[in-house]
């Protein structure tokens, strides 16, 4: 037996190749991480100034509380540049008189983004309500009731395929189904109605809901439906089978079992994944382009011109009008953040004046969506720790 080392490594180059390869893989992963962080940093760096101001208290909320408007850029002959709103532009121009050198207007880039934020919130509200109801019911069926067979196979196949349908196709679907065809109750059916069912006191007319929050919300609901179904089913499956057996063994019916000893324990998980659904719904642009979104609107959805009430109007009339106002919110088309960003990015020139509005909206939007997603991820980790059975 040789005293020398029988297990000496003979191949230095192989080892070097090994290390190189390992670093290559690491580099690949870190590159993705780096790009993500870089994008986030870039947007924050450029977008944060929209929310700050130079003097105390340094935080300028006007960007969040004003409606979008046209930006006027006025330059006087001293070379001083003022960015301002249309109304103030008039007064400044008067003050300057001869001193005015040039005035530029940039549509959409002025004011704040309150309108888009409100619109997005409304859309999300409708879509999540619809998707949550349908999704959880569907998940309950899949997890609690379904037996192996053709039907469940088809449902699963449909869910998978639904998840793969491009969002712009959902947009087309929403346009065809909700904007142009969905049924409404009306005394005077429109000409474009596909068909009308007379109900006696009124007509059920398939004439569509027009572009409005409701159409957009329903369209978005179907975009996120597969996500909600899959996640809810996982949460239901995670509830131990023992709970169901015990509950049944204690003489509960199937529905009592689901209602009392399955759903309550799956709810935190379902809500967590719903947050992810909200982030997704808020981020989609293509489905709302034709179904709900407007490029520009100078009113909030509830600031609608209703006929003024007579001075002697009773409580009831007031009440009726405010209800009308509330419900009317859903039949208005709105501005939405993603579509607003699209308008800002595609329809106005890129220059130093439009930059603040662009990056500001992108920053706010990203922060909203990202914090939703982060909350969801964080909650998921913590719930998993908390609910162990």
């Amino acid at each position, binding site marked *: 037996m040789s005293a020398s080392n029988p297990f*000496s490594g003979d191949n230095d180059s192989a080892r070097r190749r090994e290390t190189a390869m390992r670093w290559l893989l690491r580099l690949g992963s870190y590159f993705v991480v780096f790009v993500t962080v870089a994008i986030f940093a870039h947007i924050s760096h450029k977008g944060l100034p929209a929310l700050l101001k130079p003097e105390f208290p340094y935080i300028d909320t006007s960007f969040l509380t004003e409606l979008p408007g046209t930006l006027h850029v006025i330059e006087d002959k001293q070379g001083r540049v003022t960015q301002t709103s249309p109304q103030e532009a008039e007064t400044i121009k008067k003050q300057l008189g001869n001193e005015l050198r040039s005035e530029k207007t940039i549509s959409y880039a002025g004011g704040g983004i309150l309108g888009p934020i409100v619109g997005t919130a409304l859309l999300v509200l409708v879509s999540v309500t619809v998707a949550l109801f349908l999704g959880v019911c569907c998940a309950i069926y899949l997890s609690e009731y379904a037996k192996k067979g053709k039907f469940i196979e088809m449902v699963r196949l449909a869910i998978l395929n639904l998840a793969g349908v491009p969002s712009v196709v959902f947009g087309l679907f929403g346009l065809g189904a909700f904007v142009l065809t969905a049924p409404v109750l009306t005394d005077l059916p429109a000409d474009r109605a596909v068909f009308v069912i007379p109900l006696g006191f009124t007509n059920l007319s398939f004439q569509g809901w027009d572009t409005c929050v409701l159409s957009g919300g329903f369209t978005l609901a179907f975009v996120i439906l597969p996500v909600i179904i899959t996640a809810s089913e996982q949460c239901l499956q995670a509830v131990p089978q023992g709970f169901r057996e015990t509950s049944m063994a204690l003489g509960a019916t199937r529905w009592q079992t689901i209602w009392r000893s399955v759903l309550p324990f799956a709810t935190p998980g379902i809500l967590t994944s719903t947050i992810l659904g909200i982030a997704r719904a808020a981020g989609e642009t293509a489905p709302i382009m034709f179904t709900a979104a407007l490029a520009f609107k100078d009113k909030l959805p509830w600031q609608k011109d209703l006929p003024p009430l007579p001075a002697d109007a009773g409580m009831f009339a007031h009440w009726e009008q405010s209800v009308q106002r509330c419900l009317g919110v859903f039949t208005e088309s709105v501005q939405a953040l993603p579509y607003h960003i699209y308008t800002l990015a595609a329809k106005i020139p890129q220059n130093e004046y439009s930059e603040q509005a662009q990056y500001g909206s992108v920053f706010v939007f990203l922060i909203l969506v990202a914090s939703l997603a982060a909350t969801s991820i964080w909650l998921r980790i913590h719930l998993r720790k908390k609910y162990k059975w």
Partner: protein
Amino acid sequence: MDFCYGSKAALQGIHLDVEYHRVTALIGPSGCGKSTLLRCINRMNDRVAGARVSKGEILVKGKNIHDADVDLTQLRKQVGMVFQKSNPFPKTIYENVAYGLRVHGVKDKTAIDEAVERSLTQAALWDELKDRLHAHALGLSGGQQQRLCIARAIATMPDVLLMDEPCSALDPIATLKIEELITQLARDYTVVIVTHNMQQAVRVSDFTAFLHLGKLVEFAPTEELFTNPREKLTDSYLRGTFS
């Protein structure tokens, strides 16, 4: 060949000499550290985070395997291992056997062909499989899969073959075949086998080591240990009074 071993938790103060071209069986109740000891010999325990040798050394062919200049791949090439559960790769039979050669850089087709035939013959599989070398390995029966794993291990011509309860997942007939195979292999290889089946140890091994709670209780030629154990602990274990 001899190795000494001493670590804190799982194994303590073990001194054991394994002889060339003999079958050495490690027996003992479960959790006694026999598998750990086996996995230390080719440093498979390096894969487990937190596992380490705290004291002592293992010498294979006179070399401490924990020396810094030991190349792990070379060590494992020369100290082959067969696991408790057969685990062929999801590839063809041929590719399974050729795998060890390929990762050690053998590219010559004829050399690989020869090695495959030799090791399959040694593993008593050649006649059963020679017509379907390119069939999927996972289509074989459990016993065949385990023999394929043995063939895979001996394709690189290791000096030492470690077997970790190679028959525990097999039915009696397949077990019998593997045992026959081990006896044959002992002519060319040094075999260390972990088993929980005492009858098996008697049937296949030349030497037997009895471990209990991480300590080596007794090490002797198999016949001697089973017929005339020196330690009381061994005696009671062999008679089944504790388990």
